[in-house]
């Protein structure tokens, strides 16, 4: 159920952002989803195909999903740590941090149109 909601949000968001004429020419959507976003790329692909089977308007759009690792940047020493096992600690100075710089995003970061 979660994935179908996400597919609906993607299309709703793009409909708000672009005019219909332009949407008709859309050929690819590039998503960037963080490990913390609770989005599983394979399930999202399945949900997309289920929602837009052959013959429907958005079926031919290619969906690319990139999954990103969790990273925090220490507020004190500025060191960037890749978070492993959900321990949100700076690996250099051992301070806890919630300053996420990557891993939480759910972005439509690029779309392609074809003439």
């Amino acid at each position, binding site marked *: 159920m979660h994935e179908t909601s996400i597919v609906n949000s993607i299309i709703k968001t793009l409909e708000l952002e672009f005019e219909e004429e332009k949407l008709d020419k859309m*050929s690819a959507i590039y998503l960037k989803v963080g490990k913390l976003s609770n989005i599983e790329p394979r399930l999202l692909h399945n949900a997309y195909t289920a929602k837009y089977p052959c013959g429907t308007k958005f079926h031919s759009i290619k969906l690319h999903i990139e999954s990103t690792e969790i990273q925090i940047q220490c507020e004190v020493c500025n060191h960037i740590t890749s978070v492993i096992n*959900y321990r949100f600690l700076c690996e250099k100075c051992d301070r806890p941090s*919630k300053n996420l710089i990557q891993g939480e*995003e*759910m972005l439509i*970061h690029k779309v*392609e149109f074809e003439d």
Partner: protein
Amino acid sequence: MSIEKSTKAARGSVQCENTNINLLKANDYVADIIRNEMAKTKTLLINITSSAGSGKTTLMQKTAEKLKDKLTMAVMVGDLETERDAERIRESGIQALQIVTGGICHLEAQMVHQVLPEYNLEDIDLLFIENVGNLVCPASFDLGEDYRVTLMATTEGDDKPKKYPRMFLTSDMMLVSKSDLLPYLPFSVDAVIKDAREVNHELEVLQISALKGEGIDAWCDWLLNKIKEKQA
């Protein structure tokens, strides 16, 4: 069956647009509208999340009993089916409306916004959204709340914060519920707090039993403080 090779030559041109739009932009837009409305009416909005069966509705009943003479409280409760929870909460003498999601496993800002006109927000100091029992997707949907409170029942096992990190990362308060059962369960409060704070070091924690009353005063004090801050 053979795979047909495409003989079509590449045609047209590919235009590319860098968008970087949040995929839940539509949800977050509505969440901001809710937040603005709540700021106007000075209503404290709390989003209650947890697994199914961790005691959200019982906590709502207990909180209503404790606070209904001091302030006006209301609840909106999300479930896949039935109106049972809203009925239970109404028995405590407060306004409660049920959102039946019809199979959707979380509440979205749009659903909350649709129900808001049913409440007289000017008169309501504290509005709870009792989310669908689920530690996964409700974490991703901002409902315009001031605070997110997650119940973590002792019967669930103390390993949940690391299994469902995003929920604990986005919460402001963790209520370790059903504490009256601690003597009978292999559940370590220290272990659950340690794991939860590794995910979110700012997370506040209270230990409660809605059934026996432990920690309910501290919980109500926390709420009263937040209401005071909001109405200041």
